């Protein structure tokens, strides 16, 4: 009996043991199946939209509700610099966007820099250890000045972090990070799950951002030249249509004799002249990278140093104005043969203006408002045919470049005191 009984006990024990293992495996399998289902769901949801905010919301929502990551954030790469910006987060007192993480700072910054995933479960211990080392090194004189510790977004008491780079091919889009105040909170399975989510999210985010760029570009192209629009988008600059203040050089021009011409000519003739004039002036605006604010009949307003800053706005303005004067002279010769006597007058001033989108839904213009625009307009109004009048600020700045004739202070509408003005005779030959 013993010979038979003994194996029986072993077998029963073995079976009980097996059952436990099977149960464990089943649980693990159920968990895995559930995770696969969740991931499929996330994937189909995020690929069905091109709205960035919606994608981030779906990913973070799923992280919290279904995957059990209580504190999660998504940081996206700055378009221009090696920096990450927090775009969305869940599970923090202060939600929302803003903080910037430099490449190489903290777990997230190092993950961005190396484009490799990182899982740390002992942040508190490691930080205390390194702080102790630092103090020791300072005491022994091995280290005189420690660098400042990087300020990072996230839980102040995070013990565990798992950060995954969001990559499309080998290009970094951003970083997806989860954290916990508990040590060792994440394991290899979490890594696997997050990796799959990150892959899906990276592609969806990239597509959405690309779409945003195209949309922004087409919107900006309504206000700026195509090159300028692309420059703005590529620079990742703040939306220039938002109101802002900047020093600009403003050029106003209009045609002398235009009112009389328009009164005595057929509308078709007037339109024909304007078309030629606008086309030629437009080319010169583009060539000098000016921003055309508006056409009003024969009048035009152009400014420099916004939305893209340029190193020499006044110089460009003068060069453009002189080129315009020359070109209109050539056009005038043709017009004169048809019996129209037209010449261009120009006013230029420099100063601070408030700039941004002006108008209402359906009809927006990009405009600049300030004394500088008034002054340029008034100087233009005073200019005789073929004259370029500049403010003393512009004349002073371009002393080396232009020969001017001082006109003496002019009494201008909207200005309490007479304003000194200078007439530009010619560009000085470059040395």
């Amino acid at each position, binding site marked *: 009996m013993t010979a038979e009984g003994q194996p029986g006990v072993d077998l029963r024990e073995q079976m009980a043991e097996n059952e436990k293992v099977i149960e464990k495996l089943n649980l693990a399998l159920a968990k895995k199946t559930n995770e696969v289902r969740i991931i499929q769901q996330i994937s189909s949801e995020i690929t069905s939209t091109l709205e960035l905010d919606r994608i981030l919301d779906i990913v973070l929502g799923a992280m919290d509700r279904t995957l059990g990551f209580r504190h999660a954030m998504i940081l996206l790469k700055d378009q221009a610099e090696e920096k990450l910006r927090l775009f969305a987060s869940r599970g923090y007192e202060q939600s929302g966007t803003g903080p910037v993480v430099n490449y*190489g*700072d*903290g*777990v997230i*910054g*190092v*993950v961005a820099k*190396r484009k*490799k995933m*990182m899982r*740390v*479960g*002992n*942040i508190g*211990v*490691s*930080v205390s*250890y*390194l*702080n102790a*080392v*630092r103090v020791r*090194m300072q005491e022994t004189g091995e*280290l005189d000045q*420690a*660098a*400042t*510790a*990087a300020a*990072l977004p996230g839980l102040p008491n995070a*013990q565990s972090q798992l950060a995954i780079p969001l990559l499309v091919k080998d290009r970094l889009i951003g970083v997806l990070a989860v954290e916990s105040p508990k*040590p*060792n909170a994440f*394991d*290899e399975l979490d890594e696997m799950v997050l990796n799959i989510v990150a892959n899906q999210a990276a592609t969806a985010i990239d597509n959405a951002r690309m779409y945003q760029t195209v949309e922004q570009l087409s919107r900006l192209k309504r206000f700026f030249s195509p090159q300028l629009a692309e420059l703005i988008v590529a620079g990742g600059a703040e939306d220039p249509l938002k109101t802002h203040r900047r020093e600009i050089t403003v050029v106003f021009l209009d045609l002398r004799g235009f009112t009389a011409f328009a009164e005595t000519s057929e509308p078709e003739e007037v339109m024909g002249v304007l078309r030629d004039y606008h086309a030629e002036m437009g080319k010169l605006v583009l060539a000098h990278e000016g921003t055309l604010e508006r056409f009003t009949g024969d009048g035009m307003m152009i400014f420099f140093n916004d939305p893209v800053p340029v190193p020499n706005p006044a110089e460009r303005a003068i060069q453009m104005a002189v080129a315009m004067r020359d070109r209109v002279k050539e056009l005038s010769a043709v017009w004169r043969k048809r019996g129209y006597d037209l010449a261009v007058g120009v006013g230029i001033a420099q100063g601070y203006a408030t700039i941004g989108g002006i108008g209402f839904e359906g009809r927006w213009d990009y405009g600049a408002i300030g004394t500088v625009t008034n002054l340029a307009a008034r100087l233009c109004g005073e200019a005789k045919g073929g004259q370029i009048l500049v403010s003393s600020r512009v004349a002073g700045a371009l002393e080396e470049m232009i020969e001017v004739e001082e006109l003496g202070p002019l009494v201008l509408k909207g200005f309490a005191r007479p304003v000194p003005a200078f007439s530009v005779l010619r560009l000085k030959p470059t040395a």
Partner: protein
Amino acid sequence: MGMLPDEIKPAMQGVIPAHVVTCSLDGTPNVSVISQVYYVDSDHVALSYQFFNKTTKNIRENPHAVVWLISPETFESWDLEIEYDHSETSGPVFEAMDMQIEAIASMTGMKGIFKLKAADIYRVKSARKAVGERIPLFQIKELRGAA
């Protein structure tokens, strides 16, 4: 199946610092506390080499060592007999350790100062969950010096 079971992994995240026991050629033992013993694969672990200290000096003389680990989840102790194999200054193991050190250094104002010199790779000769008492060091003849 290697020497290291999966259940040891939580003890290798550096949550509870580990002890390393080494011995110089003349038989002087040394115990030091290290922040983390890294899991490489089921037969290898890695220790970070940042500063030249007694442990690194001893290991270059006598490659045998013992590490004591404590699991932060169960508080079970693990005793590992290990033997220094080689050092790596590139590759996935080095990079993973280096990234972690770089991240923590930047958080403590030690950016660019506290760096990983190398990842020292050790072969695991034995691993056992210590029940009641630690591994009796006197039984390990390699730790009694070469003499």
